């Protein structure tokens, strides 16, 4: 198998159709009124919000724009609103700063300098808003995580990844870009560098230490059981870099599963209850 950009090419039309069908089916089977999404103005949330509207219609989609003072970025908000206008779904803008400040003030061990724990509060606070809307209005929370960041564990546990459905989770970032382009997500959103925006200046590719074009090819190789040696050789990369990515992928499995349970009795949640999401 040759690791070239060609192998990451998807059929965007067919993929969009399948995702639309999935969203529609899940809303129907769960007897909910539609979906609520957090929209950041980034490519993933814009794409999944657009697909939700194309699938369910405008009235069944609500986008929450949840900015906070520290990372407030007018361009991102403008992008979020532009997508909402283009695909005609409702948005609600809520500044979450007061809530964050309440956490900062009340956590006895709070450290304002350490970025990760602090940034994760933001992602988890947003989750609370999304689930409030979902509970109150009988909606599904539609997540926007893609396969690259999910495999890398590049997300906040119980934060941005928390959702009822995750329609993009099986598409690498470079594949989401193809899909976004096809369904008409504005170019400036597709072109801008990805960021979880948990602190100022945070950039995904800088933090991961690799461009998505390369990362996706490495992950594609790992997905297909290629050795790190072979991947490094083909992509002309340092083997240590590929090893590091592989280790990170494996180490982050705890973020992708229910909490680890201990087998104590007959059938165990998270182990050998093998049931489906929808009945």
């Amino acid at each position, binding site marked *: 198998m040759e690791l070239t950009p060609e192998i990451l090419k998807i059929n965007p039309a067919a993929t969009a159709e399948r995702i639309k069908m999935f969203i529609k089916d899940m809303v129907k089977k769960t007897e909910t009124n539609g979906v609520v999404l957090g929209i950041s103005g980034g490519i993933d949330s814009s794409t999944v919000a657009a697909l939700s509207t194309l699938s369910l219609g405008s009235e069944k989609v609500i986008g929450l724009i949840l900015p906070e003072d520290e990372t407030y970025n007018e361009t991102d908000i403008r992008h979020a609103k532009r997508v909402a206008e283009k695909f005609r779904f409702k948005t609600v803008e809520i500044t979450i700063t007061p809530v964050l400040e309440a956490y900062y003030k009340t956590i006895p061990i709070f450290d304002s300098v350490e970025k990760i724990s602090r940034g994760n509060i933001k992602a988890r606070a947003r989750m609370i808003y999304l689930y409030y809307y979902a509970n109150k209005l009988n909606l599904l929370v539609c997540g926007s995580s893609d396969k690259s960041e999910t495999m890398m564990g590049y997300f906040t546990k119980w934060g941005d990844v928390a959702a009822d459905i995750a329609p993009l989770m099986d598409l690498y970032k470079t594949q989401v870009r193809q899909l976004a382009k096809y369904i008409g997500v504005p170019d400036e959103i597709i072109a801008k560098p990805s960021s979880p925006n948990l602190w100022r200046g945070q950039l995904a590719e800088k933090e991961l230490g690799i461009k998505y074009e390369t990362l996706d090819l490495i992950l594609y190789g790992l997905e297909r*059981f290629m*050795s790190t040696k072979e991947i490094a050789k083909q992509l002309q990369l340092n083997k240590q870099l590929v090893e590091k990515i592989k280790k990170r992928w*494996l180490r982050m499995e705890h973020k992708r599963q229910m909490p*680890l*349970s*201990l*087998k*104590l*009795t*007959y*059938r*165990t949640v*998270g*182990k*050998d209850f093998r049931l489906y999401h929808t009945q």
Partner: protein
Amino acid sequence: MKRFNIALTQMTCTRANKEANIQKMEKYIQKAKAENASLIVFPELALTGYTLRDQIYELAETIPGPTVMTMEKIAKRENIHIIFGMPELSEKTQAVIYNTAVLVAPKGYVGKYRKMHLPTHSVFEEKRYFRQGYKPTVFETELGKVGMLICYDAFFPEVSRILRLEGAQLLVCISASPAVRRHFFEILTVARAIENTVFLAYVNLVGLENGLQFWGGSRLIAPSGKILIQAKYNEEHMVVGTVDYSDIKPVEAFVPTLRDLRPEIFQMLQELSEKL
């Protein structure tokens, strides 16, 4: 050899780290040798740990292969027989894997047994990853005739029976049994020894792997069903017991199960199993 010492070594494995597990096995081999053991037994998939899921594809090796060569060298150097479990990669394909028990002797590689009954229920996913073995096999060694079985095989008396009918004097059952199944194995291992009038060494994994707690409790059982020696529950432990084949005859005479076998009903067993 009619009488020899056997070391039952229930160990905690470092998951997916063959090097660390080989190092640990080597230490126990030296310890077993110091206690005059002629055979040391390690648990099912001791080379890699039990819970591997998709990582198994990169850990499985052919037999013979690099790990078996290493174990051969150790067996030769320490003048000891070794039985251990590992994921075995087929020589003919790149993703057909067996759950295998390997026997090496001071003279080199003796043979392997591929697990015939792969649990795929409850917490077990073995059929998803392994191809089943096809034949119970007995190996002629300096320690007499040895037959191997792996964990869930103990629930199927046919495997032990065939091994015994092939002449096995010692059955070695390597295992990775989680705590909720302890009572099954404590009964079944004794039953397999009694019904076949044979020595049975059971060696289980110990420790926690991904929320599965392996209970240890390895034991050497005499043909009479007497537990000659037993390792601790829930902690890494090696115990050394003595196998004395001269103990088989008095039991065989007292409970002559092999004399009383009724081969004519075996056909029925096959027919009824096919029609289940």
